[in-house]
């Protein structure tokens, strides 16, 4: 009889040892567009103190947007938008995609991609050139972002500047990470000036400009060395394999539907919450079991009372896990 009573008193401890918090955290994460294969990832994430954010897709939408349209002759502003936008549809790079937002598709012919110089082609039989102003023989500009010159019929008609499309809630995501004890570092393939501007807009204190695929691994190693054993997380579309915690859309340890900095913050928040809930449920379960076992062992109460207490303790553990 006493043995049965002790066994019933162990129920809360068993409930506290179950990975209920992880299960429920995974369920909540899936709803938030976050998943993982190994539960150990949560532990790594909770321990991470630094997350390196690639410019593309984290604090920005991953695309550029037109920041300014500057026609040399104000009467030509619509023409500038039309010809640049129509030819932009033929370009594959972010600048071209941003320009394409200015106009619908036109009748294109003879399109040529000149690499980093730009693109040329005919729109409705008018020869159009898009590219760095210097390449087109136009006066240089000192605008933030990327400025392209536009020539139609071999005549310069104006400039269009494109810049990062910063997420509206990028700053709140960065703040949330900071509140979780995670430092954010911005990595950008853009110029120093543009990167600083983007970092300021998002409230990120530390940034690195002109980062490419090869320099990323060195940067991650440097941060790992400074982190004194704490993992380094990297959120990037292109360099996900370089970090201790790879946050990516498809192939990372943490898989997100996109690299939105708020989603990344949510992932870190879940990892912290799961760890906290797990600690609480274990403590509650073990405490209830110890109390029940002591009372039952002393013979102070009968089996029905012990069983009721064990059931109550188990329910409390489950409630804490569910609320966490």
């Amino acid at each position, binding site marked *: 009889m006493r043995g049965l009573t002790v066994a019933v008193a162990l129920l809360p401890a068993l409930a506290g040892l179950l990975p209920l918090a992880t299960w429920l955290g995974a369920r909540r994460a899936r709803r938030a567009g976050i998943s993982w294969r190994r539960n150990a990832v949560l532990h790594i994430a909770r321990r991470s103190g630094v997350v390196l954010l690639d410019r593309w897709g984290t604090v920005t939408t991953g695309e550029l947007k037109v920041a300014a349209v500057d026609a040399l002759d104000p009467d*030509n502003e619509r*023409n500038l938008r039309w*010809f640049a936008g129509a030819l932009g549809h033929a370009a594959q790079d972010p600048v071209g995609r941003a320009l394409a937002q200015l106009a619908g598709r036109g*009748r294109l012919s003879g399109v040529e991609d000149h690499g980093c110089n730009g693109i040329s082609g005919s*729109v*409705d039989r*008018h020869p159009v050139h898009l590219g760095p102003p210097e390449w087109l023989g136009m006066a240089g500009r000192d605008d933030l972002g990327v400025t392209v010159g536009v020539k139609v*019929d071999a005549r310069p008609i104006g400039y269009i500047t494109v810049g990062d499309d910063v997420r509206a809630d990028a700053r709140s995501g960065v703040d949330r990470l900071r509140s979780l004890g995670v430092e954010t570092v911005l990595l950008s393939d853009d110029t120093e000036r543009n990167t600083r501007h983007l970092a300021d807009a998002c409230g990120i204190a530390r940034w690195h400009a002109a980062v490419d695929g090869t320099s990323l691994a060195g940067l991650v190693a440097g941060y790992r060395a400074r982190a004194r054993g704490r993992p380094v997380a990297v959120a990037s579309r292109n360099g996900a394999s370089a970090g201790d915690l790879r946050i990516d859309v498809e192939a990372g340890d943490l898989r997100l539907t996109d690299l939105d900095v708020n989603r990344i913050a949510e992932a870190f928040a879940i990892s912290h919450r799961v760890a906290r809930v797990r600690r609480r449920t274990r403590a509650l379960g073990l405490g209830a079991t110890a109390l029940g076992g002591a009372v039952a062992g002393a013979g102070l109460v009968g089996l029905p009372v012990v069983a009721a207490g064990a059931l109550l303790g188990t329910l409390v553990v489950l409630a804490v896990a569910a609320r966490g």
Partner: protein
Amino acid sequence: MVALPSVVRKGRAGATRQRKRHTRRVVEEEAPRAEQRAVTETHASWALPGVARWMISSLETQLPTVTERIAGLVSDGAGGQRGRLVRQAVQQALRLFVDQVLDRPTSTIVVDDLFRKLGYRQAARGRDREAIAHAMQVAAAEISDELRVRAAENGLSADALNALNDAVSSFLDYLARQAQHGFDAGLAERAQDVGIARTQLIEALLAAVDPAAAQGRATAARWDIPELVTVLAVDLGPDDHPLDGDDLGAEALTGQGSPQVVLCDSTVANAVTKRIRAAAPGRRIARCWPVVVTDVPAAWRWSHRALALVRARVIPKRPVIDCARYRTEIWLHAEPVMRRQLAQDLLQPLFAESENSREILSETLLVWLETRESAPAIAARLGVHPQTVRYRWKRINELFGEVLHDPDVVTQLLLVLKASVPLWIAGDQSDFERYKSTQDP
């Protein structure tokens, strides 16, 4: 006035020369042969008894009387030149027959010539060949009657009379053949004359002669001037043979030269067009709309120009060019020199542009001048984006400035662009080369 195709003039002169050559050839070729036949086919084969010869010699004094009687029967009382010619021919033929029967030295040249003239006149006047045979039968019957009466009076034997009749019959056959030769020559000449008359008629119609004079020539050419005439220009290549009038039927008048002109009644224009295509497959035809006869010179000019515009690629290439569909083009290109000068005066701003820019700006300006529609409507016509049209319009205003507000200039611009743009699209660069030559130092 339309300058007549040189080949038409040559054709008429050539036809005259050809007629003379033909006549001379007939005389040169036929006369020796006829003389030879006179020897072999007339008295050389006769074998008359002496009594027959005697009777003929006794009749010699009666020849004028017999001549008058036969001539009167054959000419049917006709006077004038024809009556004299018939009498002379009968007289000379009877004299020749008597001389040959009596074995006197003779020559058939005069008789041959007279009977050929008779046959020639018969054909030239469009009379029947049978009339010659009938006249010969009348003469033969009359002579036979005379001989029979004389034979009875002189107691000539039947054999002698038969021999004499055979000789007369043989002689008349010879004379009939001479008349037939003349008739054939007359027929050929007559055919030649109709061809000349038709050539003269088409020349007159193209030169806009007085309608009354044209009517006279039309009668000679056996062509009824219709109420409405269709003028066709047939584009012949340098190696092509001109169309033969016989291939197109009597209702079509066919000229010479290239393009070759063909006139016909507008009601049979389709049939004539089909015949031209059958006779000259692959050759392009420009067919003008029906016109009154006094407008034939203009219609010829229009159809001629239509062919030139096809060659300039202003009018699309088709086997049969219906000029009515291209009236505007034909009209606009009526004065090429004026078009060229207007282009140099009015379109200079465009000439300074690049070839591509010039082409698209002129095309847009032309459509705007023609339609005066909105940018989207013009864009739909040109197959471009409306904003492209607005951009082009801005450029056009920059190039032409205030002149686009002058109605006279706008009208001239419309005309000169309407005429010039198709030429430029077809590859004609002469306007720009001329402009560049004036700009180059």
